[in-house]
């Protein structure tokens, strides 16, 4: 995978139930396409947040490639209902610590915007994997896909911004 000049897609899916987001989370992970990161986050009916990360997400974090940063500015669009899945731990050792850190950051930043009872799925993948990734997202009520090109980190950041913009625009 070329890191210096690639096009990255960010997909943000919105769900009314954690179950549905979980299903797509699993479906995306099994889709066979290359994934930079897959994350599901949401809020249960009592208001508690939790997040689940794929190994890919942790891997990205380990590389210092803004796996945390790409969600820092995440704004859940007003009509996007989001929930969560219980955070099944992935990885071990450093991976586990990193997982906890990323999950913490996810919850900290998404907490203000994810509505009670909703869930969101965030997938980062190279454009070349879109044919496999997109069909795997089957149950999202709303889907916004952003893209950006360039160095990996810059592309990731740009794609997040584009997805955010599209998601907000779509919900207005």
């Amino acid at each position, binding site marked *: 995978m070329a890191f210096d000049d690639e096009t990255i897609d960010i997909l943000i899916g919105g*769900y*009314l*139930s*954690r*179950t*549905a987001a979980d299903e797509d989370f699993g479906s995306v992970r099994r889709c066979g396409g290359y994934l930079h990161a897959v994350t599901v986050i949401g809020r249960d*009916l*009592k*208001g508690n947040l939790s997040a689940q990360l794929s190994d890919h997400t942790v891997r990205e974090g380990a590389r210092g490639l803004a796996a945390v940063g790409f969600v820092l500015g995440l704004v859940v669009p*007003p*009509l996007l*209902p989001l*929930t969560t899945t219980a955070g099944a731990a992935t990885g071990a050792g450093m991976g586990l610590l990193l997982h906890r850190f990323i999950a913490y950051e996810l919850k900290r930043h998404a907490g203000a915007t994810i*509505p*009670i*009872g909703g869930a969101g799925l965030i997938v980062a993948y190279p454009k070349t994997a879109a044919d496999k990734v997109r069909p795997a997202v089957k*149950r999202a*009520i709303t889907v916004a896909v952003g893209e950006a090109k360039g160095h990996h980190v810059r592309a990731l950041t740009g794609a997040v911004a584009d997805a955010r913009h599209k998601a907000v625009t779509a919900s207005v």
Partner: protein
Amino acid sequence: MPNPPDRTRLPIRRAPFQGRVDRTLAGSQPDWASIAPIQAPDGAPNVLLVLIDDAGFGNPATFGGPIATPNYTRLAENGLRYNRFHVTALCSPTRAALLTGRNSHAVGFGSVGEFSNGFPGYTALLPRDCAPLPRILRDNGYSTAAFGKWHLTADGQQGPAGPLDRWPNGWGFDYFYGFLGGDAGQWDTCLAENQQIIGTPAGFYDKQQPFYLPDAMADKTIEWLHGVRAQDPRKPFLVYFATGCSHAPHHVSQAWADRYRGQFDGGWDRMREDTFARQKQLGIIPEHAELTARDEAIPAWDDLPDRLKAFYARQMEVYAGYSENADHNVGRVIDAIDELGELDNTLIIWIWGDNGASMEGTVTGSFNELTMQNGIPLSDEMQLQLAERYGGIQAWGNQIVAPHYSAAWAWAGNTPFQWGKQVGSHLGGTRNPMVIHWPDRITDKNRLRSQFTHVTDIAPTLLDVAGIPEPTHVDGIEQQPIHGVSFAGSFTDADAVERHTQQYFETIGNRAMYKDGWWLAMKTRRIPWVLTPDALAPYRPGVWDPDDDPVELYYLPDDFSQAKNVAAEHPEKVEELKDLFWTEAEKYQVLPLLATLGGFFGLSPPLPDVTKLEFRPDVQNVMPGMIPRIYNHSYTISADLIVPPQGVQGVIVAEADHLGGFSLFVDDGRLTHTYSMMGVFIYRQQATQPLPVGEVSVRMEFVADAPKPATGGQVTLFINDKPVGGGRMEHTVPVRFSAYAGMDIGRDNGGVVDLSYDDRKPFAFTGTIKKVVFDIKPHLSTVDEQVLHEAAQHGHAAHALAG
């Protein structure tokens, strides 16, 4: 021998004093008859009148349906099945006609109890010159009681200020236990008893044996019967047992629903075909009857995505279990009467449905019955996800949801007919099963009766068999005649002359005229569950000409199910029946047509002039139609509190529950506001700092974005006039939070708004609340205000029509 009392004038006048009064007891002679209670005529039977809610001709197994109804069947096997009995296609109108013996429009119930308007046929206020059956029986020596659903008291009269004369006691019931509105949660019912709203019972909080209304109704009925008999072993009784089942919310335990696990996996088209076959096998419908076609508004089961089929099948499993439970609890009442030794002399009339099965769940069904009424468009995938949010499809029927099934299941439940509830033009909305059981009189057991009968016939039939005349005057007021006719002759004679030969039907513009076997159906083109502006545009005043509606003509002796439209072959009959309908409509106050929808077309009631309401801390169970009208407006909720040194927690004010409502409460020392937009969107704002000790003023301020329905807006929380937190609410409830859950000060009775304190419910406030004030801010523009007012009426109508 004393002369028999004159029963045509009620209350019955007592005979002149027959004794003698002197200055002292010496020489005085008491007249003991003067203090004896009024006696019913000799031989007057006990009456058990059972009415199931929102159910169809093809639902109970007794009539070939898929739902096990062993108690209904045992009565039928020892009594009579009626397969041409008719209702009005809507809740309140059928109930009004049932209890008065008069056409529903003629007694002000052209529509439902919540929807009282200024046309005579639609006031939802029983006229004084139409004394109802329970009043007549009570004044003639019966003990009378009603249990369960009422739906005959106007929405704005359901509080202690009343007026109370149109509550059940005012209709002539000695005792009432149930709910006043159109539906109620079966787990968390906001109950009324006699002339008081008593709220959700303590049993709601019992996790081991939670309250369940159908069980409680049977318990209360049996207890009442025992009490009556303990006092008077001979006095006849009238028990009106009107179940909340099978109206939404479809609430029943998983065990009952699981009795049907897998039974509906073949879908609604299969269910319909199977029911139809059984109906023929049982002889419920004639051999020549045809199964009517599916309208294109209802999808074919085979066209559904496979991933949704389990979701849809569970909807019907729950409905079936819920309905079977109703049969079970009616059976308990019957057993109690039997145990008293009075079953043979109790006339039981059991009607399975006040209208056809309800299609108000729209095609998708809904996890929350009020989403449709609030105009929230939800796709089948959204509905499935919301069901998953609240426990998954196996939780459908539990306390946490308020479900309604798909319109397609309702249609299948109305087999073999077209359409269903609200469609007064067709038999799917108007023909329901009836079983009559009376061993003392009916010896022709397990037989079918096919005389055309109508819900208005019940009251005159009961008066007939009790030997009680129709009163000419009640409380000095000359009475309108009863419109129904007795069909008691059919109890003993299968070939008894059919006396009800002509009947109009009208529900929300859908109309029919029946005469001597001919049925003219005039259905508006609107899909019954669609109330969008586009769908209503063709019915605007000046645009709609009812005579342009499509007509269908059926000859029922040859066409039991209305499968063969012969309008083209009999144009003269079409015209004759059209003309007759207009004559009847004028006679019985049906006009103006579509008065029910007047709110959609600018005929709204005057704007309310009260914008500020104060509630003291002991106010509870304010019925949902009477809470402050905060919808679509900016408003504030403020409260004066005393916070003790140890701090406080608990609810300051809460309306309804997590499926629609709001709560202003204190948790973890912080002022919090939670707002549930029908359980779809849930917003919570919390203060950033704790409440101080001592006298504290708190306030929640909502500033609406725009004068429009479901407006978003900004919430700000204040403590002692200082902002301490807030947040956005992108969507608000435009119409109504709940069909039945009430508003409480100082606690959150019943289901709670914020599930974070569910394990502490009712989460009573631990400090002191001096008062809570709602201040609703009128919009600056009078035009805006009027537009919103009309929008609220639209929603109100939508809610009412689901009654």
